[in-house]
């Protein structure tokens, strides 16, 4: 063999080995890409990013046990607090993906939003009061003792989700998506849509679905075990905004629940009108609501 041949063979071998090694290299590991939102100061300057925290970060918190307990109470409210929950509902039934979904009633900015004056109450409400509002309306149950371990744990979880963003800064999130409130609902169309889009999970009679242990899988949308008439969800446009962006679940290949994005505003309003106006428990405290006026047009009383 002459030199040229020899060197060509060696060169080819080196290249082949190189290519082989290159091809055998496993691809680099990908890190998480969490969802984030801009944080604005009072002058609307971007001063940082709010990153939706992952539960795997909880164990590093000094009050990890309290936060985890709070999270469990939110996810399994009915099972863990049966004395306080009358309906077959959990906090996470409406606060989608443990209160970590934009437009799904998230807890992102909740800690910083209270105390505040609520039009419905006509006075200042603090976070405990707000949570107890949910217990008495959406859960059709009884309030928690504001100093109880349970209330403190739930607030610890909400505080943790909020990630200690300073109170004078605003995270650019939406608690609820937009819906055209000028649309006139058609409950008859809503009934047909309900059967096609909702009843597979929530039942033909709105009865919801429980698992073999009796725990809630899909909450009842009307009847004795549903939220009462004082709940925000009992209002047509509030419910429509919720379902347009968060329902049905399991219909998209993205999003925490694979949720939303299939109903038009009109369809969401039609469905909402239909199911919110089906029979449901009354709310005794309703006489005090909107005592100072400002009653919204979809208020139930």
């Amino acid at each position, binding site marked *: 063999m002459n030199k040229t041949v020899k060197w060509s063979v060696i060169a080819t071998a080196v290249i082949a080995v190189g290519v082989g090694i290159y091809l055998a290299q*496993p691809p680099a*590991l990908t890190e998480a890409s969490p969802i984030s939102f801009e944080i604005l100061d009072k002058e609307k300057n971007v001063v940082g990013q709010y990153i939706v925290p992952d539960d795997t970060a*909880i164990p590093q918190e000094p009050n990890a046990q309290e936060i985890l307990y709070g999270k469990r109470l939110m996810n399994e409210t009915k099972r863990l607090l049966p004395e306080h929950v009358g309906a077959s509902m959990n906090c996470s039934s409406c606060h989608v993906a443990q209160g970590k979904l934009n437009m799904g009633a998230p807890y992102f900015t909740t800690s910083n939003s209270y105390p505040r004056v609520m039009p419905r109450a006509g006075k200042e409400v603090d976070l405990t009061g707000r949570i107890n509002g949910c217990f008495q309306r959406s859960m059709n149950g009884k309030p928690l003792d504001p100093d109880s371990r349970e209330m403190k744990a739930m607030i610890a979880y909400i505080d943790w989700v909020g990630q200690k963003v300073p109170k004078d800064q605003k995270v650019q999130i939406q608690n609820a998506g937009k819906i055209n409130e000028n649309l006139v609902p058609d409950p008859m169309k809503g009934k047909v849509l309900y059967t096609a889009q909702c009843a597979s999970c929530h039942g033909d009679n709105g009865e919801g679905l429980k698992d073999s242990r009796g725990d809630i899988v899909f909450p009842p949308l009307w009847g004795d075990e549903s939220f009462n008439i004082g709940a925000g969800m009992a209002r047509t446009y509030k419910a429509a905004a919720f379902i347009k962006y968060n329902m049905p679940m399991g219909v998209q290949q993205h999003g925490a629940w694979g949720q939303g994005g299939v109903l038009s505003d009109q369809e969401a309003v039609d469905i909402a009108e239909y199911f919110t106006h089906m029979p449901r428990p009354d709310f005794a405290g309703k006489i005090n609501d909107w005592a100072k006026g400002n009653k919204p047009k979809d208020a139930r009383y």
Partner: protein
Amino acid sequence: MRILHKSLIAAAVLFAVAYGGAAVLPKTRVPDTVTSVDLNNDELIKRGAYIARTADCVACHTSPNGAEYAGGLAMETPVGAIYSTNITPDKETGIGNYSLAQFIGAVKHGVRGDGQALYPAMPYPSYAIMPDEDLTALYAYFMADVKPVKQQNADSTIPPVLNWRWPMAWWQLVFAPERDFVPDPNADEEINRGAYLVEGPGHCSACHTPRGIAYQELALKLSDGDEFLSGAVIDGWRAKSLRGEARGLASWSQEELEQFLSTGRTDKVAAFGAMADVVQHSTQYFTPEDISSMAKYLKNLPPVKGRETSMAAKTDTTTGDLLNGNYTSRGALLYTEHCTTCHRADGKGVERIFPALDGNSAIFANNAQSVIQITLEGGKMPETSADRMAFTMPAFNHLSDRDLAEVINFIRNSWTNQAPEVKAVDIAKIRHFVSGKAPHINATGDQHE
């Protein structure tokens, strides 16, 4: 030098013979029958339409959002993507000019109308056992009842040399013999009908049987060897073992198999990946008799020699831990946050809505590839007339490779599940594969992921 010379000449001669032979070989495979087919025979067309369902032509020959049978679906192979072709009766871009003999040549023997060999992405080694009467009905259906669509076929993404078609002629000689269906004399008529559907038109083995170095299926029927339907990886999905073993179909009842094939779900599982297409386009249209035959045949398949036939007993401690807030691992925390809402603390899912993870043979398969891919990409159940809604699984590709490995290991080894561990690098590999998939093509020129 003389030796070099001689070997060069020998190589050239060999190449010429191989190349020349390849031009002749396919012609020997095409039947020379000149039968006229009555394209106005409604009964024949209807039978052909059913046979098209049993052969699931539409699933591969239609791209997402594309026209039926117009081709353009990318099929991943280890060396690149092959695009399925237009098999509508369009005379210019489809098979409108095919004679019955050419049609049979293509479907059963892998020879195109122009005499070129087809890649074995087309499952002609399976279709080979279909009787010519069925092919005649199929031909009548395609010519008379399928809407012609003008859509050019796309070239494969296989690199030059590897994309040479002529060596396929020799491949066919070795790996795609002409053959007929041989019924098992010891099995009843129903099982034999099931065997025919599975081996032939159903071409189950195209995905569920491992392939050799030349991309050939290692067995085309049970008597060929224990590889038959023993599980394989195709298009990044792991097609499960269909054999009667613990990680095969041992955990399935015949009734569950029937439900699965006709509706895409059982109370425990749901079809996903390529199998969702199979149910949606093919098996949901099978007659109850054919469904039952297939299920019965599959349930009768023996385990592969040496594989476990039952799982070791395991007590579920996971459900209690999750319900009590006892998160024993990072995987458990991830599961609670991302999976519990649908798949539940007991891993049992919700009947016909969200599949169970506990006791689901797709989950505890030795090869975790499907679990990894569906977790990364999400998935969708087939739409069938049996259920009002077909549900999806969202993609969790926003989680890190490490966390995906944690949660997948949790799922595969919690409750009563037992499966080998996956590593973060396994996730990285499949993430890399998924992002490199060739797009599908349809008539509008749109490309779809």
